[in-house]
């Protein structure tokens, strides 16, 4: 088991190295000249040339890449002489657009995205699984069709549509909530909730439908298993049969999907963050793309990739917790 974990972590690191390399190369292949982007309208060739050297952009690509990787683990210093800038570990680059190191930018945006993702995660997973169980218990009846049908409606609308709809009616038309303005929950929990509730619902509506269907399908499959019949033959209550026997057996794909969906969101819920002006990783990434801010783009891709890789490992380890046969294999 320990060997398996170590192997998975090493593969994960390898994937991240490849990911960073590809991102780095792709964005450097873009026609935008990063050195030219460092100054605004007042740019002249001398400043650009000077900045090119300060940023190390005059070096060959592989040197730039190695400097980038080195920066993550050891930090780095840009420029020389009087105009130096120290970028601390883990240094993910320097954004001239924002005149800031990238790492603090990400660290500032990350809590917003984490709150958004976790809240939405709970809000779609719990009702999704519960409604899935309910639908499976009412197979072939009107209740099942009602649940699956309304889930499909949520599923079919893109998140920007649901988000805008909620924003328009709840905030603008009915004025039930103030206009979203993100604040840390530790500073002002009420305003935090007022801001987050609509984005949470938006994301939850989009994801929930999938979990309802997944849970229902998994359960319908396990209901016909022999061990479910055994559980009933033992005289267990129907609730126990479903919770302890059927749901546990059908859990694996739900855990996989949930883990990967959560990780995907943690990398930035681009549309939802943009609609509700949440200063999260997704909004940071969109802004960076608009500004051709290569350092920020590379860093956000890497952060999102890290979440996915870590989630994959966690999900695989959870398999072993759920299914003892995996543990011994």
């Amino acid at each position, binding site marked *: 088991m320990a060997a398996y974990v170590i192997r998975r972590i090493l593969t994960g690191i390898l994937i991240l190295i490849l990911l960073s390399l590809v991102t780095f190369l792709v964005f450097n292949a873009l026609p935008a000249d990063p050195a030219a982007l460092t100054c605004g309208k007042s740019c002249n060739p001398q400043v650009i040339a000077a900045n090119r050297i300060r940023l190390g952009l005059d070096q060959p690509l592989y040197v730039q890449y190695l400097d980038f990787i080195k920066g993550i683990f050891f930090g780095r210093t840009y420029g020389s002489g009087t105009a130096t800038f120290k970028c601390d570990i883990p240094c993910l680059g320097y954004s001239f657009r924002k005149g800031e190191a990238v790492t603090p930018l990400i660290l500032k945006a990350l809590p917003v995205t984490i709150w958004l993702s976790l809240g939405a995660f709970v809000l779609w997973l719990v009702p999704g699984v519960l409604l899935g169980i309910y639908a499976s218990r009412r197979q072939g009846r009107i209740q099942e069709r009602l649940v699956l049908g309304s889930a499909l409606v949520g599923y079919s609308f893109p998140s920007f549509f649901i988000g805008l709809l909620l924003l328009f009616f709840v905030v603008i038309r009915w004025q039930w909530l103030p206009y979203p303005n993100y604040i840390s929950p530790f500073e002002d929990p009420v305003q935090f909730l007022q801001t987050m509730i609509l984005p949470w619902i938006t994301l939850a509506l989009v994801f929930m439908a999938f979990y309802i269907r997944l849970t229902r399908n998994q359960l319908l499959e396990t209901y016909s298993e*022999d061990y479910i019949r055994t559980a009933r033959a033992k005289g267990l209550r129907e609730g126990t049969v479903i919770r302890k026997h059927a749901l546990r057996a059908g859990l694996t794909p739900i855990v996989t999907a949930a883990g990967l969906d959560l990780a995907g969101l943690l990398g930035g819920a681009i549309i939802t963050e943009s609609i509700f002006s949440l200063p999260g990783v997704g909004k940071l990434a969109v802004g960076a793309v608009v500004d051709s801010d290569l350092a920020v783009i590379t860093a956000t891709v890497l952060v999102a990739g890290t979440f996915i890789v870590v989630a994959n490992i966690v999900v695989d380890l959870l398999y072993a917790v759920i299914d003892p046969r995996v543990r011994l294999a």
Partner: protein
Amino acid sequence: MTFLSVTDLQVSFSTEDGTVKAVDGVSFNLERGKTLAIVGESGSGKSVTSQAIMALHTGRGTTVSGQIELNGTDIVTASEEKLRSMRGNEMAMIFQDPFASLHPFYRIGSQLAEAVYAHRKVSKKEAKAEALRMLNKVGIPNPEQRIEDYPHQLSGGMRQRVMIAMALINGPELLIADEPTTALDVTVQAQILELLAELQAEFNTAIILITHDLGIVADKADEIVVMYGGRIVEQAGLHDLFYKPQMPYTVGLLSSVPRLDSAGNRLLSIGGQPPSLINLPTGCVFNPRCAAKNPDIAPRCESERPELREVGENQFVRCHLDEEQREKFATTRLAEVLEGE
């Protein structure tokens, strides 16, 4: 009072292709400590019958009617809570495939304990002690260690022993064994049957043994019910059924049991397929495959459903042939097998 009495049991499923009458008019009685074998091919209704006794037909579109009285309680009309309290407590069941029948994610100790908790208020320690006691009883070596195992860590025979331990842990008076040895190695089959017989003697359990193999019931059953197409076609005591089979189908089953002690080694199979339960043949359900066809009564066999009638002491048969014709067919057919023609 009869311990278990099944009267005119009917089970039907409604499917997209029409209504399937899986069990039609099955009746039998069973006393404590006795074994009733239900023999038949796949689709004969034997498993459906047994699951009706356990009240495990909960699916929509399933209709169960008739009477199943166990200790005076009618299972067909009992409330779900009453049935739950009976399952695993007064009546228990083991299944064909012990691997598929044990939950793959739980240790066998916890699966056994769960059966105890379902019916008794006991502490964790007591439940574990019960589990150990039963594992010992069914002949599992090192039960203290095995109790921590998952089903996939046990052999097929061990798994079926665990299933038996789980079924008997609350001391039920009725045990239904649905093809308990079919998925097991031949060498293990006899051990499991032997174990069932021992435990039956100890607990005075009534057993319904469901099988397609007449060979395994030969020295285990007191009474045998032969089912075909959802109906009982012959019912008799063990001795009568083996030595005086009446129904051509029973004769066919007997001639298809491989025997080591007969010189002739010809094995006779019953031609054709079991009938489709949606579209049963008119007349005798077995008629299309019947080897005892007789021109004198053939029209009757094709058009009229025979009734189950008593032909000897506690022997019933569903056949239009008269006694002489049945006896003649059985004698010549079995002689063919024994002599290898």
